[in-house]
């Protein structure tokens, strides 16, 4: 079983608040990802990172930002949450060079009122 963790699992917050979604993995993987997923829908890549100090935008434009100061940690921040940000956010990691398999965390379900 993959060792990738996300906190909080659920977050309900008011409009305009700043939030940070945490993601940590203990597998030593270099590459990490953030996806946005509406219930029952496909996953959309919003950010990824090749390693420390690397951050890239994904296919879906997002107002969120990410940072990668340590290999194991890849937090996502929303400076001012809005109802349109309500969604599930999934973090994943992979080790390039082996397979392209990505290991997923349990997700954070965000509701912005």
């Amino acid at each position, binding site marked *: 079983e993959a060792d990738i963790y996300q906190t909080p699992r659920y977050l309900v917050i008011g409009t305009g608040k700043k939030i940070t979604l945490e993601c940590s993995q203990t597998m030593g993987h270099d590459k990490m*990802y953030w*996806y946005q997923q509406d219930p*029952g*829908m*496909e*996953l*959309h*890549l919003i950010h*990824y990172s090749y390693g420390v100090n690397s951050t*890239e935008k*994904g*296919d879906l434009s997002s107002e969120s930002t990410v940072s990668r100061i340590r290999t194991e940690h890849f937090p996502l921040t929303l400076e001012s949450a809005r109802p349109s940000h309500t969604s599930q956010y*999934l973090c*994943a990691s992979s080790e*390039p060079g082996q*397979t*392209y*398999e*990505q*290991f*997923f*965390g*349990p*997700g954070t379900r965000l509701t912005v009122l």
Partner: protein
Amino acid sequence: GESVGLHLPTLSVQEGDNSIINCAYSNSASDYFIWYKQESGKGPQFIIDIRSNMDKRQGQRVTVLLNKTVKHLSLQIAATQPGDSAVYFCAENRATGANNLFFGTGTRLTVIP
């Protein structure tokens, strides 16, 4: 039972029957494909993968078939069990520089006891 992915996003099968979940992919240069299972409230979990130089790969109760001519992927689940009820996603690596996965629309499988 059988689904056609985008056109039939839900599939209901009787317990003990075989299930076939279909997926059409878009890029003829894609070199790697993977099936994930996502249960309610959880992140996607790896089921099986296949490289483009293969036509078939078998796992425990699951088989993935790849038809590159028509860009079609299928997941067969033998003797479907209630624990198989979930949303199933196919994903492809389009062999671009980033080597990220692109996820298709999921198919919800419901197993009827």
